[in-house]
């Protein structure tokens, strides 16, 4: 019978502490990494689910694939408390201003995940009414390919976002490059 210790060793991997100076009874590391560690394991996603990818996201949130294991248990449908805007499904030209408005009203620091081919590039719907990819209106951090992507792919996308969140420096959001990137989308 595997002892208590082995079970922990095999199944549960606890988040590794960031590098820092270790001493008797103290641990020192840079503020970026501590804040990054805290943010990355408690991302509150805003599920902007429109079509088929929305149903696949329901499968990712349900008990089988369970996105809650990665700290994203708490969905926030209002942009005020959301960190990550997950755009899932086809965005038509009628819906584009809505996506932009929701993105604008999110509190900094904010990230965007484009789930599925439709959100990333318009997918198979190259038609007069579909916006060919949301990166034409808002900056996107992670693209998840697939139509719809499997829940494992969505979780992989979330992990990629978590790496970005973990490594981000605290001054990035006020840096000139970031302001210039937003200006290129007409967001002041």
């Amino acid at each position: 019978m595997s002892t208590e210790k082995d079970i922990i060793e095999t199944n549960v991997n606890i988040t590794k502490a960031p590098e820092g100076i270790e001493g008797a009874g103290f641990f020192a590391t840079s503020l970026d990494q501590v804040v990054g560690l805290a943010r990355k394991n408690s991302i509150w996603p805003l599920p902007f689910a429109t079509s088929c990818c929305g149903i696949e996201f329901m499968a990712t949130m349900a008990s089988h694939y369970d996105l809650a294991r990665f700290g994203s248990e708490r969905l926030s449908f209002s942009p005020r408390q959301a960190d990550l805007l997950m755009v899932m499904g086809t965005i038509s030209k009628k819906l584009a201003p809505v996506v932009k408005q929701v993105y604008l009203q999110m509190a900094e620091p904010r990230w965007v995940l484009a789930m599925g081919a439709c959100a990333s590039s318009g997918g198979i719907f190259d038609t007069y009414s579909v916006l060919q990819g949301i990166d034409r209106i808002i900056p996107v951090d992670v693209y998840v390919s697939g139509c719809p992507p499997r829940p494992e792919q969505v979780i992989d996308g979330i992990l990629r976002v978590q790496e970005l969140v973990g490594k981000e420096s605290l001054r990035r959001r006020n840096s000139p490059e970031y302001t210039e990137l937003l200006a290129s989308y007409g967001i002041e």
Partner: protein
Amino acid sequence: MENVTQEIGKELQDKFGDAIVSQSLIIDFPTFVVKKEKILDIMNFLYDFELYKFQFLTSLCGVHFPDNVKEEEYSVVYQLHDLVRNQRIRLKVFTSESQIQVPSVTSLFSTANWLERETFDFFGIQFTGHPNLVKILNMEDQPYFPMRKQYPLEDGTREDKDDSKFGR
């Protein structure tokens, strides 16, 4: 099924005379081409018709025939269904581009409300007597009617579909 078409055709012929342009049986649907002015009266007549009570409007859609003769460029296809005797029929109405008005049937079937708005949205067919004829699926201020054959399907802003690479 063939005698059903004849029966209904004969009844309609007696009642409306030359408003019934033609009748035919297409696979399993008795189809009647009728004059557009009479469409509402024909539907009222069929609603409480003694042979079959066609009281369920299954579907309504528009079609654009660019190569047809000028008077028959746009068509609206109605499909009715008598749920009790399980008999379906199809009514077709043709109209030209210049006066593209077709009387609305919303007074008889509430289901036609959005179906007619969708047909207007796609083909620009004006349904006279419709309570709120506004584009429903596309943006209200879209200047053109996208389902007409002369308009392209593609959005045109895609860079990865470079026609030269596909020999177009």
